[in-house]
């Protein structure tokens, strides 16, 4: 920890790059007590993710998932978005930097602009729309996309003819042609770099005909083609003639894993998965059967639920997977594209496709490289920020952190994890300045409407064309006006956009509206946003009701617009009926216990506990065994070759020395009660269950780890020449002579992974095998080494290892699942291995002296522990996060977080990043003195209670108890508001606030046109 200039430390942080990683880092830090300056060169935040159609492996709509984050970052009091700006220089040192920014002109004052769009309507200039990947046009005055934050127009001066039309049309007087670049200075304590990547430009390749033919598109262009808000409004068409394609080919590794054209040798990590996603979504979009073929080298589906996703594409959707690198794309006269390729069988095939999608990889942009140079950040050979595996989010400059794809190519959840990790790193040394520069929001007092008749305002969303393109939104709006108690109804292009929020507030005040109904999308994603809006003008957030006329209506009834309109009316009628009975609920705040429980003393747990302590809070570190260190104690080196043991030993020593960390060895979690901010956990000795301790904590991080599978396959345990990775690491540590003397060593991949029994990929084994093979080669350069694999998954920059292994003469033999290698063990000593070689197409035999099984990584069995915390595990036993994409470290239950292999097999650098991320997420809670708890909770009417214990027995969180007075008691602070007891109570003694019987009955009565009966 630096002690220099402690007094000068600044309680604000700068984030450069406002993609999904930058947004996550900003939100984490702003919610944990730091003022954040979020800088982006673009006119709005959102980055690459905003351009995506759907996200793998859940097929959630990307814009729908990210837009609440855009809005939150846009309206956050402690996040200052600085668009159109570049970081020019960074002077000073960690804790007190001076950042010089160049603020490029927008030519439209974003403070004055109301985003009314008049400037766009009058603009005579047409330009290509870069957001739609040049597949569409826009005006010179434009916003990137309708949900853009900040929502204000800008002028593209490169195409503007300066006609002055917009200046005349702008009633707000926001146009300023003379706008100049300005320079500004900001003092910050730390910097997080999240500039992201650009896509590789395939026009460099002539063979793929990208620049010669419009039907050859990049994967990002195809995302826009599939997107409902894209150039073709979600209709699957090919650019050349707008015909519906019957056959589409995806070509993998364009600009990745290729060194022939001065492109990139690394793997871009995400392309296999997005191509699978695109092929499945394209099949869904196509009105006629679509033939989708993916041409690939290795299928890299190494993430959580990815392997099953691929299975689903192949077996469920009928996507063809062809292992081949296509060498020629030949345009035909009719717009078709002839592909010549050599499949595994070896013959040369030709096939004509209607469209070709190039799975373009990631690349660091020129601007990013220049910025790194200006800041003095070291880049690695691939122009990514150089980081150590043991400090994966720290750059070469102290106080400057990195996350997302500027660190290395990676997918969204990994970027989000790193973003949180970088946030934890950036704020770690600033904790004494926490809350020093943040602003607090003054909310007006809530108005009391209890004496007033309901006056309902209804806002119907078009959601671009998501709703309005199917249902007749004006008809729904007019219908809403006829409903009881409705005094105002209108429709909006996007009800969730920032300008509409302002408009809603204005109308509520003007018309005296005291209940608000929004008919749009899912309350799951958007309810908090609208609730916050109405609270800002004094309405209790619970005087709000949503009708989901998109996800549950226009999306599923796309082909029957009239019936979708009718259903939208039904849903609005129901929402209005409930709205009339809505009541204000008080906002309860509770004191927070500013301590964190960390379960599991491996690397993830140690990093988490140290992270919490370094942020200034107490961490309870509980470990079941009698030593700290976990699985890492058996590992020799990270993938970049950094020794693991000294690092783990240092971690353990630091944890033991740190007075804020209380370590409990040979201890298990016995019982957990409480909710976010206030948990009470009973710890019990693993040796003596009667020896218990009770601790209080505001959050908990589960880092319960995993272990290596002990194979039943291949005579493991019966023959001393057959080892697992951990066995081999131990043998290397012990300088086992047998290793050096081995003449032939064979690694067998996927032992226990990607099988019927265990469908997932264990992610780390390919890398571990290659790393170990290289070590063996170093021990004995004469050793013949074979790696028998199904797909080599050296994702990201780890591809370097694969390249090196091949250069060193390590040989790779592919097998498929149905034809695995076979070992014969004569009299238990001599081994005979037979495998069918994929090139020779015939079996080959060898007598290895050493066989290393790349055994699967299993989660530790912790059924009871998970039950205590009420956290879910998937069918493989890994913990299930709140959202696969944007909440990869949180559990759905608030205040609980996960890190490390308990989540999914991962390498040590990824575990460290996730542990740091968990710290950052927990800081949102424990850095505050008080926390607001949910008002939607169950309450008991004692007169009706039969003390039957039904609630006690059905509550999944063990909250209700029958008190001494003889009726059930449910502590408001403990209740999760799930409603299980409410629906089970045989005496109808329990009510869930905001979901009362009266309110629900009013909805169903409204559905069936029954006059109010209560």
């Amino acid at each position, binding site marked *: 920890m630096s002690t220099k200039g402690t007094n000068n430390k600044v309680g604000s942080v700068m984030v450069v790059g406002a993609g999904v990683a930058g947004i996550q880092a900003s939100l984490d830090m702003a919610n944990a007590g730091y003022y954040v300056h979020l800088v982006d060169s673009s006119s709005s935040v959102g980055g690459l993710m905003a351009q995506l159609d759907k996200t793998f492996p859940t097929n959630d709509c990307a814009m729908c998932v990210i837009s609440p984050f855009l809005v939150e970052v846009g309206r956050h009091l402690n996040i200052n978005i600085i668009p159109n700006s570049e970081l020019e220089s960074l002077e000073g040192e960690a804790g007190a930097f001076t950042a010089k920014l160049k603020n490029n002109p927008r030519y439209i004052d974003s403070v004055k602009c109301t985003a009314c769009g008049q400037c766009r309507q009058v603009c005579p200039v047409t330009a290509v729309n870069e957001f739609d990947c040049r597949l569409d046009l826009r005006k010179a005055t434009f916003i990137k996309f309708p949900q853009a934050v900040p929502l204000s127009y800008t002028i593209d001066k490169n195409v503007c003819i300066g006609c002055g039309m917009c200046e005349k049309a702008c009633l707000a007087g926001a146009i300023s042609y003379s706008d100049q670049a300005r320079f500004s200075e900001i003092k910050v304590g730390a910097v997080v770099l999240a500039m992201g990547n650009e896509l590789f430009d395939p026009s460099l390749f002539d063979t793929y005909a990208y620049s010669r033919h419009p039907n050859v598109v990049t994967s990002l262009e195809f995302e826009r083609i599939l997107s409902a808000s894209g150039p073709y409004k979600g209709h699957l068409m090919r650019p050349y003639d707008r015909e519906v394609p019957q056959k589409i080919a995806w070509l993998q590794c364009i600009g990745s894993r290729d060194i022939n054209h001065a492109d990139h040798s690394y793997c871009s990590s995400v392309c296999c998965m997005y191509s699978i996603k695109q092929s499945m979504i394209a099949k869904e979009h196509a009105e006629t059967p679509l033939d989708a073929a993916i041409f690939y080298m290795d299928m890299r589906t190494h993430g959580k639920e990815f392997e099953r996703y691929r299975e689903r594409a192949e077996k469920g959707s009928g996507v063809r997977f062809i292992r081949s690198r296509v060498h020629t794309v030949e345009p035909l006269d009719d717009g078709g594209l002839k592909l010549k390729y050599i499949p595994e069988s070896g013959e040369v095939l030709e096939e004509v496709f209607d469209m070709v999608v190039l799975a373009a990889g990631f690349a660091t942009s020129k601007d990013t490289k220049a910025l790194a140079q200006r800041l003095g950040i070291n880049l690695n050979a691939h122009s990514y920020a150089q980081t150590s595996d043991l400090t994966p989010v720290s750059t070469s400059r102290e106080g400057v952190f990195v996350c997302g794809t500027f660190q290395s190519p990676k997918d969204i959840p990994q970027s989000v994890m790193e973003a949180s990790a970088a946030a934890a790193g950036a704020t770690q040394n600033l904790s004494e300045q926490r809350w020093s520069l943040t602003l607090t929001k003054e909310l007006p007092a809530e108005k009391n409407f209890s004496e007033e008749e309901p006056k309902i305002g209804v806002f119907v969303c078009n959601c671009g064309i998501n709703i309005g393109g199917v249902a007749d939104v004006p008809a729904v709006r007019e219908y809403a006006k006829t409903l009881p108690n409705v005094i105002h109804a209108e429709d909006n292009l996007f009800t969730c956009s920032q300008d509409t929020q302002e408009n809603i507030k204005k109308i509520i005040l003007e018309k005296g509206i005291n209940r608000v109904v929004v008919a749009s999308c899912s309350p799951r994603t958007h309810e908090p946003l609208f609730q916050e809006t109405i609270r800002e003008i004094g309405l209790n957030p619970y005087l709000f009701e949503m009708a989901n006329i998109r996800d549950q209506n226009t999306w599923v009834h796309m082909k029957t617009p009239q019936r979708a309109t009718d259903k939208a009316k039904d849903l609005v009628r129901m929402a209005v009926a409930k709205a009339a009975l809505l009541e204000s609920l008080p906002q309860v705040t509770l004191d927070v216990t500013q301590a964190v429980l960390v379960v599991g003393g491996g690397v993830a747990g140690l990093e988490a506990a140290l992270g919490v302590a370094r942020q200034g809070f107490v961490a309870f570190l509980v470990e079941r065994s009698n030593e700290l260190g976990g699985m890492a104690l058996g590992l020799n080196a990270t993938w970049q070759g950094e020794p693991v043991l000294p690092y783990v030993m240092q971690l353990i020593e630091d944890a033991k020395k740190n007075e804020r960390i209380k370590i409990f060895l040979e201890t298990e979690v016995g019982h957990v009660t409480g909710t976010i901010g206030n948990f009470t956990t009973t710890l019990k000795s693993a040796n003596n269950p009667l020896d218990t301790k009770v601790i209080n904590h505001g959050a908990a991080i589960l880092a319960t780890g995993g272990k290596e599978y002990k194979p039943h396959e291949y005579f493991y345990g019966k023959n001393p020449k057959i080892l697992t990775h951990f066995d081999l690491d131990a043998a290397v540590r012990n300088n086992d002579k047998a290793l050096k003397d081995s003449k032939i060593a064979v690694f067998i991949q996927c032992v226990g992974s990607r099988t019927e029994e265990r469908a997932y990929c264990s992610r780390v084994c390919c890398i571990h095998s290659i790393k170990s093979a290289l070590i063996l080669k170093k021990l004995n350069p004469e050793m013949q080494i074979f790696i028998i694999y199904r797909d080599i998954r050296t994702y990201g920059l780890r591809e370097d290892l694969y390249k090196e292994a091949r250069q060193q003469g390590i040989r790779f033999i592919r097998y498929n699942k149905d034809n695995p290698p076979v070992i014969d063990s004569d009299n238990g000593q001599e081994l005979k291995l037979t495998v069918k070689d994929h090139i020779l197409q015939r079996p080959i035999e060898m007598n290895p002296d050493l066989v290393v099984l790349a055994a699967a990584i299993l989660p530790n069995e912790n059924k009871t522990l998970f039950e205590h915390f009420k956290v879910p595990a998937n069918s493989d036993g890994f913990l299930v996060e709140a959202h696969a994409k944007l909440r990869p470290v949180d559990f759905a239950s608030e205040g609980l977080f996960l890190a490390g292999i308990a989540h999914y097999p991962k390498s040590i650098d990824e575990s460290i990043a996730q542990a740091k991320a968990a710290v950052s997420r927990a800081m949102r809670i424990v850095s505050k003195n008080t926390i607001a708890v949910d008002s939607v909770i169950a309450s008991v009417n004692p007169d*009706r209670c*039969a003390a*039957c*214990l039904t609630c006690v*027995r*059905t509550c999944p969180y063990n909250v209700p108890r029958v008190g001494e007075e003889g009726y059930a008691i449910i502590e408001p602070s403990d209740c999760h508001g799930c409603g299980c007891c409410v629906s089970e*109570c*045989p*005496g*109808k003694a329990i009510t869930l606030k905001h979901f009362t019987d009266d309110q629900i009955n009013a909805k169903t009565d409204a559905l069936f046109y029954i006059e109010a009966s209560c």
Partner: protein
Amino acid sequence: MIVADRKPLSEILDMITDRDKILIMGCKGCVTVCNVGGVKEVQILSSSLKIARKKEGRSLTVDQITIERQCDPEYIEQVKATINDYDAVISMACGVGPQFLSEAYPQQKFFPAVNTKFFGGATSHGIWEERCAGCGTCVIHYFDGLCPVARCSKSLMNGPCGGSSKGYCEISKEVPCIWDMIVKKKMEQGRLDDLLCFTPAKNWRTSRDGGPRKSVREELAI
């Protein structure tokens, strides 16, 4: 507690087939606790009957009330003013309810909506088991808390019989043999010798065999 099961809807519908205005009466006692005749079940039955009638194209008016207990005249008295406004009344209490109601209101027709089954308790939520047969002469202490009267298919006092197999009773693979359990428990506690003494035939006159029973507590009777 008295444990009951709801009768099938079709049976209840048949009962009220020629009635158009009915009252459903719940009970806050045992039947609420065993999730069969409390406020919630009354509401569910009410809705189910209305929906079923609507499908037949006929309407049905249903009122609902759940009283403290249907086995006390004072509580039954509470519905006096309106009880004869209905074509029929459905009681969701145990068998005691419709009888007390019929005695109090001879003009009205009362239908039982539940089948009263046994005295027992919930072993877990949703599962109730018989524990007491109300035999009138409790012998549980002889058998270490396991009652052969209620829980042996033959109410044997000296068991097990030849029908006990691998811990289960010959009547069903799902019914544990209580005598097997008694023997095991005695063995665990080192008191197997207790079972060497012959338990004489039980006097069943205190049970149903002696005819309808009555309990008179002179010190309480006013």
